[in-house]
């Protein structure tokens, strides 16, 4: 079949080397953030809310005080960074994994199942086993999409979206069936044993060691993408799959599969960490759409793993602050979803104007081909 995936040929591998954080990128990111906040302020005013109170609450609930920063923002940022990395590595390879949310759910479910089955095991056995199982679970879920793509030519854009819904129904079934708590009153699992709880990172806060895992994953991926042969293969097939196959002798199907497995494993790990660090049980709505927000996180970071850490924390802060905005100023918290989307759109618009030297020059994997055919 002809390959409807866009833009492979458009991506310039060379772009990667120029993509280091610079003053200009920082400035562009600041402009995007300020513009979005201004738009939010205006929208709140127009909708009749007390905009100053609301934005104040947003600040206090996110970065404005130590407890909110550690116990809300960074806790919330942990799954966003991990799924953001999952999306970034996939998009970098030109693999459109929209399924981070489903992979996270499966990871959470598998980790919970392992935790409940081996509840008596000591922490040093149980915790790594459950987190590992979550990663494997998420990887397998993404592996379905990889198999469909490489064997049957099914576009991963469509298959990963479909698998998100299947995963949601699967978790819905588990928490009302095999994994439901014994009284059968609530759609949730039994609490996991204390041995599976992630230890607290900073005493007196709710910040757990999962955040350290997210930071480590970001650093590792940044290094791996830049300095290893596997990272080069990922960038090469994202840049131009045909050239990678012909000139680079790269097995595109195999690299695509590996990328999807890695991407799914990162998302699955995010789910397992969410269970063992935050919720301590499996719930149907354990993910408020982390895997979808992750797409915005990854794009805003220009698909750069280290930058994902920054945008993940930014979005974690936005979402944490939104909750306090809802409490203090009765502004519906979902409004930040619109703000996140607006950020991506502003970025897309800037990228058309600013050329490839701006922050958006990093959009490599994501730009339409065709400067040459511009009308």
């Amino acid at each position, binding site marked *: *079949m*002809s390959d*409807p*995936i*866009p*833009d492979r040929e458009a991506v310039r591998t060379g772009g990667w080397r120029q993509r280091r954080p610079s003053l200009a990128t920082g400035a562009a990111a600041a402009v995007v953030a300020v513009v979005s906040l201004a738009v939010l302020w205006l929208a709140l005013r127009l*909708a009749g809310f007390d905009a100053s109170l609301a934005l104040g609450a947003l600040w206090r609930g996110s970065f404005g005080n130590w407890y909110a920063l550690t116990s809300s923002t960074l806790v919330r940022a942990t799954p966003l960074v991990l799924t953001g990395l999952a999306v970034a590595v996939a998009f970098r390879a030109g693999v*459109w994994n*929209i399924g981070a949310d489903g992979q996270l759910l499966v990871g959470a479910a598998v980790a919970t199942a392992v935790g409940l089955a081996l509840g008596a095991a000591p922490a040093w056995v149980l915790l790594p086993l459950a987190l590992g199982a979550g990663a494997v679970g998420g990887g397998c879920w993404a592996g*379905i999409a990889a198999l*469909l793509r490489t*064997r*049957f*030519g*099914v*576009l991963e*854009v*469509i*298959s990963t*979206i*479909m*698998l998100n*819904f*299947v995963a949601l*129904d*699967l978790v*819905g*079934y588990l928490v*009302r*069936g095999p994994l439901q708590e014994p009284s059968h009153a609530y759609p949730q699992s039994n609490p996991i044993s204390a041995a599976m709880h992630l230890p607290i990172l900073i005493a007196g806060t709710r910040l757990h060691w999962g955040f350290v895992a997210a930071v480590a994953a970001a650093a590792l991926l940044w290094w791996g993408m830049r300095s290893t042969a596997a990272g080069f293969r990922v960038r090469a097939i994202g840049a131009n799959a045909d050239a990678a196959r012909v000139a680079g002798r790269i097995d595109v199907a195999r690299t695509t599969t590996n990328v999807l497995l890695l991407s799914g494993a990162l998302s699955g790990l995010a789910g397992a960490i969410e269970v063992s660090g935050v919720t301590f049980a499996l719930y149907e709505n354990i993910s408020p759409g982390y895997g*979808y*927000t992750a*797409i*915005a996180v990854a*794009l805003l970071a220009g698909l750069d793993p280290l930058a994902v850490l920054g945008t993940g924390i930014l979005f974690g802060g936005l979402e944490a602050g939104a909750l306090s905005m*809802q409490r203090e100023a009765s*502004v*519906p918290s*979902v*409004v*930040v*979803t*619109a*703000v*996140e*989307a*607006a950020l*991506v*759109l502003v970025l*897309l*618009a800037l*990228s*058309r104007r600013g050329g490839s030297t701006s922050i958006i020059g990093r*959009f490599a994997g*994501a730009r*339409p*081909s*065709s400067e040459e*055919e511009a*009308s």
Partner: protein
Amino acid sequence: MTGALTSFLEASVRTATPLALAALGELLVERAGVINIGLEGIVLGGAFGALLGAGSNSLTIGFIVGCTAGVAVAALFALFAVTMRADQIITGTAVNLLVLGLTGALYRGLYGATGAALTIPTTGSVAVPLLARIPVLGSALFEQPPPTYLVYLTVPVLWWWLYRTHSGLAVRAIGERPESVRVAGVDTHRWRWVTLLVAGGLGGVAGATLVLSQSGTFAEGMSAGRGFIAIAIVVLGRWRPMGVLIASLLFGAASALQYLFQAMGWRVPYQLFLALPYVLTLLALAGFAGRKIEAPASLGHAA
């Protein structure tokens, strides 16, 4: 037994209606070489628009506002994905998030944080004289709310436009080789805009159908993946109007199976039925392996 079968068929067509409307629009867009993931947001926007419009106690205004909302969302997508030549999948994803956030915030802002259950009157079924009296199939196909008849109308019109008119040929050519068409003097951006706006209208009506002909209420994120399923339906229907109609009916039937099972008293976890359409799509798409897939060649590329 006949009763169960009839209600199964009725439910199939009812569920298929919004899917078919959205998918027929997406078919048109994809024939012009654009993949619009933002369809999910269009359907959701249409549903919310219908809620706003129906506040005037007029169902017609509800459908009009729903349709307009769909067009507006599609215009936003077109502005970025066509005019600014931004990546289509990224634009679509952003549009979906934007609509999800905006409708959710507006809904809670306008109707209270709890989202107190709203009830909107719904369109009744309209029976087509004579045809509705065909045994078994008659009431399923011809005793449905008005949007179903819009589907029956859109299929031949779309077919005629795409295959029998000059502009339809231009649209299909844009989907295959936009550069050549541009050289021939056709404004590719304009036609992509036109197809997107038409699809926005159809997707908006699909969303309005959910509110005004089916549930009689609005819920946050109530499009619930129908836009995404519609995109899969276009692939299943091989980018042809008739194929899309048949694929939509298959989907409707898969979703309606749960009513049949309930009626027959078979106990199966209901999540299985919820997941069935998605699993079925994946299996059906995988079943195309090795066969020639006639996707428009420029699908996903800027023109």
